[in-house]
């Protein structure tokens, strides 16, 4: 099968969506002719016109407001936020409007819209353009949070998210855009669920987004030392597919949680709390969380690469987890 990049897969999903349903449109900064800062919306304006592919001023509160207001009257907007960091300038429309209106209005309105945005460090973009802020969104009831790790998932999940009648924040890691994988040409959807990327029996690594690749690399490395790691790619943080996680822990009895976001108060904390609650007796060693240290994303290459969780950190966490239980049993 042909291989395409995640950027191409997203662009393809957008084209499929636009050609299938007239209520779908997209707004964002420089997304039309320029193709967006995410460079995923190229060709859209040529194919579907400037009524449905709209460059906006630099006004994120209003931009997300377009998602809220237009979806409430039956359109299906896609809102592109150039960086997830710009939740700062648009947060009220997410926190107090998108997430709350359906419930607050007694279930009398639907808000079928998707906020597409990019997250992540690694490209030297500095403290205000490199964050992983999914934990903020996952704490707020009322929004879906999707974080694909590859082109195939991105296409299928984006189409699923566009059909969702709830606000979805669809977060694309900037380091993944150029990664290729096999992607069918035809339209398809993936349901909101986690996937076991690599079965294993010794330790479970629960992760998502770009860190899936770090986890898989660590797993490969650990195989050579006879350690058999299971890697779970969550793909979707809300709704959370806790069953897949617990089933794995029941098998391995060791858990390592890995994300690029700050460890403190990160989504890994929620995962750890749920795992220990659901599989307390099955755990042979403490759940280890790996996340970024408690500082903004630094600029310099030396610091940024120390900042982002590395394959080595994952390898040693897995070993630490196994050693803990081995020691206890000895």
């Amino acid at each position, binding site marked *: 099968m042909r291989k*395409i990049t995640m*950027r*191409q897969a997203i*662009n*393809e999903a957008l*084209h*499929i969506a*636009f*050609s*299938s*349903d007239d209520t779908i*449109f997209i707004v964002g900064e420089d997304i039309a002719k*320029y193709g967006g800062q995410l*460079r995923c919306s*190229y*060709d859209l304006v040529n194919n579907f016109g400037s009524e*449905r592919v*709209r460059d*906006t*001023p630099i*006004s994120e*509160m*209003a931009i*997300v*407001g*377009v998602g*809220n*207001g*237009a*979806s*409430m*009257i039956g*359109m*299906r*907007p896609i809102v592109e936020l150039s960086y997830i960091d710009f939740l700062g300038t648009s947060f*009220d*429309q997410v926190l*107090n*409007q998108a997430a709350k209106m*359906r*419930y*607050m*209005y*007694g*279930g*009398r*309105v*639907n808000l*079928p819209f998707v906020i597409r945005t990019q997250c992540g460090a690694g490209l030297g973009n500095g403290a205000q353009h490199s964050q992983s802020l999914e934990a903020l969104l996952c704490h707020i009831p*009322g929004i879906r949070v999707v974080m694909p790790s590859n082109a195939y998932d991105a296409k299928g999940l984006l*189409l*699923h998210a*566009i*059909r*969702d009648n*709830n606000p979805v924040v669809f977060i694309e890691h900037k380091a993944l855009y150029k990664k290729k994988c096999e992607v069918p*040409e035809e*339209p*398809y*959807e993936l349901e909101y669920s986690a996937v076991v990327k690599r079965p294993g029996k010794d330790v479970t690594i629960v992760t998502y987004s770009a860190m899936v690749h770090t986890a898989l690399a660590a797993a490969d490395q650990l195989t050579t030392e006879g350690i058999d790691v299971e890697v779970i790619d969550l793909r979707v943080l809300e709704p959370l597919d806790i069953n897949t996680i617990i089933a794995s822990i029941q098998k391995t009895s060791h858990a390592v949680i890995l994300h690029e976001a700050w460890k403190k108060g990160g989504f890994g904390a929620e995962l750890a709390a749920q795992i220990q609650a659901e599989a307390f007796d099955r755990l042979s060693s403490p759940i280890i969380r790996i996340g970024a240290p408690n500082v903004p994303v630094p600029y310099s290459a030396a610091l940024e690469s120390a900042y982002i969780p590395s394959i080595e950190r994952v390898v040693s966490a897995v070993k630490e987890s196994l050693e803990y239980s081995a020691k206890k049993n000895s």
Partner: protein
Amino acid sequence: MGQKKNLSEEQLLDMYRKMVRIRLFEEEAIELAKAGKTRAVVHTYVGQEATAVGACFQLSNKDYITSTHRGHGHCIAKGADLRRMFAELMGKETGYCKGKGGSMHIADLDTGNLGANGIVGGGIPIATGAAVGLSIRKSKNVVVCFFGDGASNQGSFHESLNLASIWKLPIVYICENNKYGISTHFSQAMNIEHISDRAKSYGIPGHTIDGNDVVQIYDALGEAIERCHAGEGPTLIEADTYRVSGHYFGDNENYRTREEVNVWRQKDPITRFEAYLKQQCSISQEALSSILVEEKELVITSSQTAEKDSEPKASEMMNDLYATQFADITWKPFVSTHKER
């Protein structure tokens, strides 16, 4: 008073009825608040009735509004059911939001009300978004966005009006300058005389009109909607009015004088409209009085019925957050060129 233009006697009386209904609703709401039957503070619309009624009289159920924390008036002007409103204020399961929203959070899509909003300025981007939807659909319907003088200092105001202007959206922004944001007089919060002058920042028309003159509002909306229909985009209308009640029931009002309030009581929109109807339209006091009686009856019955309604069961708490159905769309194949740019 404005030009009554093509308004029939029936229409004029209907406007009067709506204004009276709002006033009586608010008076009853205050009674309920006093008696501790509403949960939190209520922000009443007393003294501003002309604005909501005059504006909404130009709209059908397919035209939309967004409203504010002071939203009962807009809601009623748009045609809401009083019992369901009272029920919501009292947190009953029969309320518009099943008791989940409260006074500041009533939405009613059936009458085109996209919702009150507890965040000052929060509704402005939403209204603008709805107008984007209408514009893409090439609909002839419009959006009317209500907000206060205080809200016009929010960033969301600026971003939204600018967006509406460049996209020539079918929307009318109505800033109800009732002179206060809580305790802060608008002249203390901005250094301009007319909020309507802010329209210049967006290259759109801005007008300050008498917000206590229901016919003038009606006329101004008519013009603004014509602009929408002609594809000329948004208008900013500043309705000069006054918040006769405190910010909420229970406000100590230490920031203004009785005299100031009394001056504005003289300009009461309902009293003025009564005089107008009698003098200019030869409508009898009886006709007006009977409307008053009918509306009083409606309000009291609605309130009493709502009061007897049940509170939602705790088991209802977890419902209504997420829609469970996905849209019914069949994806069509489309292979893009993949010439990334």
